[in-house]
């Protein structure tokens, strides 16, 4: 008897056994179904959280460095206080960088602050106003839906022009076109030359469309005359990110005239740091979530093991007969493993069928989709649970002495 026949026979026998005890099989499957449903939903929710973060973070750009006085994340308060004593970055430093960096494609000084934006009698509260140069269009990668980004000449000359975000546009102009209109930012008149593409919100917390971009010269005269700026630097190629970073660091040190023994008095931030920070938090949530939901899966596994033991005990005679007429240990082992595996796999399939509509409900809160990965992992896990928890009972059945087994009542 070859292996294939053995498996086919195993399937046949286990199917008959499952059907022979319908209620028992249903209950056992139900135990597994509950476990798989909760774990699948947890997996989908966590994946949804990740996706919503990744789509929020992608606006930062993987190949952009954000040079600023302070790091985005500090380990403790003392470190933060130390960074607060550093010299602010200056626009002149950004201008020097432009001439000296060879591995970068764009350098944009960026100053930002909240300001009030008005048009005729309508106004928009605290809009994030960015003062920058035309290079910002390259470093941020933001698309323009209408009009154009201001030119190098407009930026250098400090013309009173601005580009507004989608939300500002709809707040001030309703459905009408904003192009060519004159709006007031911090009580000074600016001409709208462009409208940014819609960017959505950051993790659903705050909108990224509530902003306006003006030339940095204008920012200094109208909003904040000594701003604490950040310098956005886009690397030329993603492949030489590390080289670009080192070049940037050394150029900054040179520009700020640091002695070789001095520590950096600026920080180079990257999207990567945000991702790491998020991963730490999301990792904890995932660990706790999977632990709790995994427990119910474990309980389901125990249920299977228990019922398989009963099943083996009940079918002792059958096992004895099979052995007496020549079945090997392996055959018996395989038979019971197949039975446990079948129940679990069936449970997994049913669980997926139940979890699917539930994820559709979840989509209202998170961009959660039940990915093929989650589904296949769920099936794999259920199969593994079946095999693992079925192993001990199957082993016991396989090791039976055929003589004793035949004699058993």
């Amino acid at each position, binding site marked *: 008897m070859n292996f294939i026949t053995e498996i086919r026979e195993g399937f046949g026998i286990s199917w008959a056994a499952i059907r022979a005890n319908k209620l028992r099989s249903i*209950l056992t499957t139900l135990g597994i179904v509950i476990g798989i449903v909760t774990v699948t939903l947890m997996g989908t929710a966590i994946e949804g959280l990740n996706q919503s973060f990744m789509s929020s973070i992608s606006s930062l750009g993987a190949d952009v460095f954000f040079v600023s006085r302070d790091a985005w994340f500090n380990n403790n308060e003392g470190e933060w*206080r130390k960074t607060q004593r550093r010299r602010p970055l200056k626009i002149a430093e950004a201008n020097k960088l432009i001439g000296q960096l060879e591995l970068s494609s764009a350098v944009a000084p960026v100053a930002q602050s909240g300001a009030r934006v008005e048009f005729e009698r309508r106004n928009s509260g605290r809009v994030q106003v960015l003062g920058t140069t035309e290079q910002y269009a390259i470093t941020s990668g933001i698309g323009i839906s209408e009009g154009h980004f201001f030119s190098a000449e407009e930026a250098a000359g400090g013309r009173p022009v601005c580009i507004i975000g989608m939300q500002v546009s709809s707040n001030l102009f309703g459905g009408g076109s904003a192009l060519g209109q004159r709006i007031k930012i911090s009580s000074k008149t600016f001409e709208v030359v462009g409208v940014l593409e819609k960017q959505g919100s950051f993790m659903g917390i705050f909108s990224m469309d509530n902003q306006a971009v003006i030339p940095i010269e204008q920012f200094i005269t109208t909003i904040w005359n000594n701003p604490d700026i950040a310098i956005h630097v886009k690397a030329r190629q993603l492949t030489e990110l590390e080289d670009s970073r080192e070049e940037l660091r050394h150029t900054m040190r040179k520009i700020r005239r640091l002695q070789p023994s001095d520590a950096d008095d600026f920080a180079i931030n990257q999207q990567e740091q945000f991702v790491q920070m998020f991963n730490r938090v999301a990792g904890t949530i995932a660990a706790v*979530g999977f632990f709790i939901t995994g*427990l119910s899966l*474990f*309980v*389901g596994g*125990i249920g299977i093991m*228990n019922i398989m033991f009963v099943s083996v005990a009940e079918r002792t005679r059958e096992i004895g007969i099979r052995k007496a007429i020549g079945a090997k240990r392996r055959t018996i082992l395989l038979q019971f493993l197949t039975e446990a595996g079948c129940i679990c796999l069936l449970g997994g399939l049913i669980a997926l069928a139940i979890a699917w509509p539930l994820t559709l409900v979840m989509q209202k809160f998170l961009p959660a989709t039940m990915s093929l990965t989650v589904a296949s992992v769920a099936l794999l896990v259920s199969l593994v649970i079946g095999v693992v928890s079925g192993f001990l009972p199957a082993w016991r059945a396989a090791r039976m002495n055929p003589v004793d087994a035949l004699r058993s009542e």
Partner: protein
Amino acid sequence: MKQKHEITLLTEARESLFMALNAVAAHKLRSALTLLGVLIGVFSIIVVMTSMRVLKTNVETEMSQLGANTFKVQKWPELQFEGPMGWEKYRRRLNFTLAHGKLVIEKATLATSVGIEEDFWGGQMETRFEKSAPGVRILGETPGSFPAKNWTIADGRALTDNDVDNARDVCVLADGLARTLFPFGSPVGDKLKMDGINYQVIGVLTAKGATMGGSQDNFVIIPISTGLNRFGSWKRSLSILVQARDKASYEDCVEQVRGILRVARKVPPGAEDDFELFSNDSLIAQFEKFTRAVRIGVAVISSIALLAAGIGIMNIMLVSVTERTREIGIRRAIGAKKRNIMTQFLVEAVVLCEVGGIIGVVLGILGGNAIAFYFKVPPAIPFDWIALGLALCSLVGIIFGTYPAYKAANLDPIESLRYE
């Protein structure tokens, strides 16, 4: 007759219990596995609830900054859940000035003490012995703040009205800070340098129960007027601390202060208050409200395992009934009623559940308090959840044991005697 009935009930209960224990002991492996299911289900609930209780105690200790019957009034809410855009509403509010505080001191007749507070700056302190780490908080206070914040003086004296009126360069140290800055003897009368200026130390506070790692014990108190002169009063909004005489007059006191401030800040009748008013309790209640959804979600998820365990029990009880069909037949034949059989199997299910439940509770409390150990906070034992967990166990046993027990009770005695 009634007495006899009671005796039979008692005997029946005892008999059922013995039979259940025997049945559990007869199939050790099977019982152990079933038990394990319930054990894990209960463990999951108790471990989650214990750790949530521990975290809650942690948060409450951090939030309890005020004394009894005390509330705080300020421009900003203490807890903010609305994201960056929510700030706009609060930012536009009128700042609290010293004049507002003095008005409350003057007019609030129902308050025993009124303090004015501002968190000025954090920096490094220096004495002739030691330098502190940077980040020591400097609090500007008035004499009324001491009872309101539950501060007592261990050494020297507290601030007086004179100190505040004359904006003296004096300070009171928190216990932890006093120990680091003046390692030898009493600091009272000595000098302390902060931000380049010398202050005379006039007192030291008694230590607060420093369970939280000492962050509560690392600050300097100076007269608020001194602070405002030195660090600037422009764009600053102070907080006002009010302590009511007792619990009974607390509500009245809150209303009085609210009225005084609404008039002073020219809030039109019917309009919302343009300030936030909170106490320890209201702060904790607010926190509870915001985290309620999460807590309920976690509780539900953690009890799913118990459901799976219940199904396992039902399954194994069905097997058990089938196996013992003959036994049931014999019991019925010699006079057992349906009710007796039903009780027998129900008790068996409940006993299984309870044994698993008790072990689960013990393990759950140990596991949950591992977190308490990690955060260095006092351990918590959630007695209500222990009771609830054990009750849930019995409930699971009854719910999932009923069908098998019912099936057993309704077996035909003749058929079951014949059963092989």
